[in-house]
């Protein structure tokens, strides 16, 4: 099973911000992390990740800097900013709403149908 492109794109921002909320990171590591977290089900491309990082930087949600960690190559590291944290919180709220609504539908479809019918029943 592969997650569809639209869904990947929609969830990209909270995912990147969430990973960066754990500490600064660079492109390749972020991609690896997403791969690990989703067991390779999320099909992320570089063409998605890097422009997204640059957009988040332009919006001020992340900052970047070229750093050389001892023993490793010089890399462009990304760090989340306070506005990025606020954005993450907002995104989390929205996703929670979506996820809980979907769960409520899927856990017990019959309940939902009945509860949707109740107002009508009450009137009658």
């Amino acid at each position, binding site marked *: 099973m592969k997650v569809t492109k639209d869904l990947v794109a929609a969830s990209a921002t909270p995912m990147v911000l969430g990973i960066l909320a754990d500490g600064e990171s660079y492109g*390749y590591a972020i991609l690896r992390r997403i791969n690990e977290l989703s067991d390779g089900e999320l099909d992320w*491309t*570089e*063409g998605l990740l890097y*422009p997204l990082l*640059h957009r988040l930087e332009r919006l001020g949600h992340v900052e970047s800097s070229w750093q050389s960690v001892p023993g490793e*190559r010089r890399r*462009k590291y990304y760090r989340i900013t306070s506005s990025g944290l606020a954005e993450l919180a907002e995104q989390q709220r929205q996703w929670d709403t979506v996820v809980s609504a979907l769960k409520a539908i899927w856990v017990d479809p019959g309940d939902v149908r009945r509860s949707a019918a109740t107002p009508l029943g009450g009137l009658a």
Partner: protein
Amino acid sequence: MTAPGSPDGTTASSGQDTLEAQFAQWRHYVRRRPELQRSDTEELEDHLRGSVDELVAAGLRPDEAFLVAVKRLGGLDELSREFAREHSERLWKQLVLTGGTDDPETDTRSRRDLIAMIICAVGAAVSIKIPELFGLGFQQDGAFYAPNFSLFALPWLAAYLAWRRRAGTALIGVMVALFALGAVAANVYPLAEDSQSLVLTTIHLPIAMWFVVGLAYVADDPRSSRRRMDFIRFTGECFVYFVLIALGGGVLTAFTVGTFQAIGIDPEGFISQWLLPCGVVAAVVVAGWLVEAKQSVVENIAPVLTRLFTPLFTAALLAFLVALVWTTAGINVEREALILFDLLLVVVLGLLLYSISARDPLAPPGLFDRLQLALVVSALIIDVLVLWAITERITEYGTTPNKAAALGENVILLANLAWSAWLMLGFVRRRTPFAALERWQTGYLPVYAGWAWIVVLLFPPLFSYL
């Protein structure tokens, strides 16, 4: 860094060498994308290296790992498209004048260019005020400033170009001598303020001087047809930029006048004595510098204008010819008519030149070439009719410097266009290569320069300083 997982040191290092060569090739390939800047390339390269390291650790040979990693990165087209969606401004080629490019070497060079340009522009602005120290006012002594004006601007532009091209001492000597000769021609003849020769010198000396600038422009290889064509392109772009700067200058002047007058100060003296003369001569240098700086960054505008106006001019000229035949009225040869038709030929030649300058010499003849042939031929027919009428007048009433100069120019342009039309006909019929037309035009350049010099140097004594 050695590749882990390789059996011994030597293969590892040679594998590493190939890998570095592959990376270098990839970098070179990716950098040509306007959407991807230097820092993006570095970031992607780091990504690629991360991927390669992982694959090598998993047991692949470095070159195999590289191929797999590049494949995983996906098509460059798609990647560029994604980058372009975020950085759409990069597709609008921005003219970065100094700094801000991602290449430090280009940065220092463009900064040095800027400094040299500022020195030359300031030099030009200062030089035009120097005669004032000797009591020559800009408004009273028009007879001095008019013919000399180009001598305050063009030597500075030539100096800038010569500096940029690292011209040899011999060439610099020739240029200095020609500018000096120009100064002599403009000043030694006893010309009255209202003489025709003064006007002719005022018009022709800048042309002669411009070809000296051309000498500086083609400093590295003056005989090369390609370099001369570059000079033609430079001339067109320089003109367009100068006009744009002049428009901006006009806005600046209008605001200066308006705002200062609003507080009761009249800035007219400052504008006519300082802003205008200094601004114009400095703008010439700035325009030249802009063309040099933007060369490969911004699309040439002169050929675009050519494309727009060639069909329109062709239509206008054909309509004129039809009307001429229809009404059977002869051309009324007024005094200005010859100059008008000279200018018409100049415009037609300009349209021809700038479409040649932008054309791919190897492309087969197309509709546009036929259109151009029609334009040139109709201009030629009109001009022959005009010449016919005017020669009658001249033989009747004798000649003046103005008529002689206008007639000479007409003949020069006519000769050029007639042979061009012949070559174009051959090209449209696929008999002659396009390069012949290009060579004819670039080879003809010295003729214009020669004629300008003749008018400046020989006409005044020839017509007894009339």
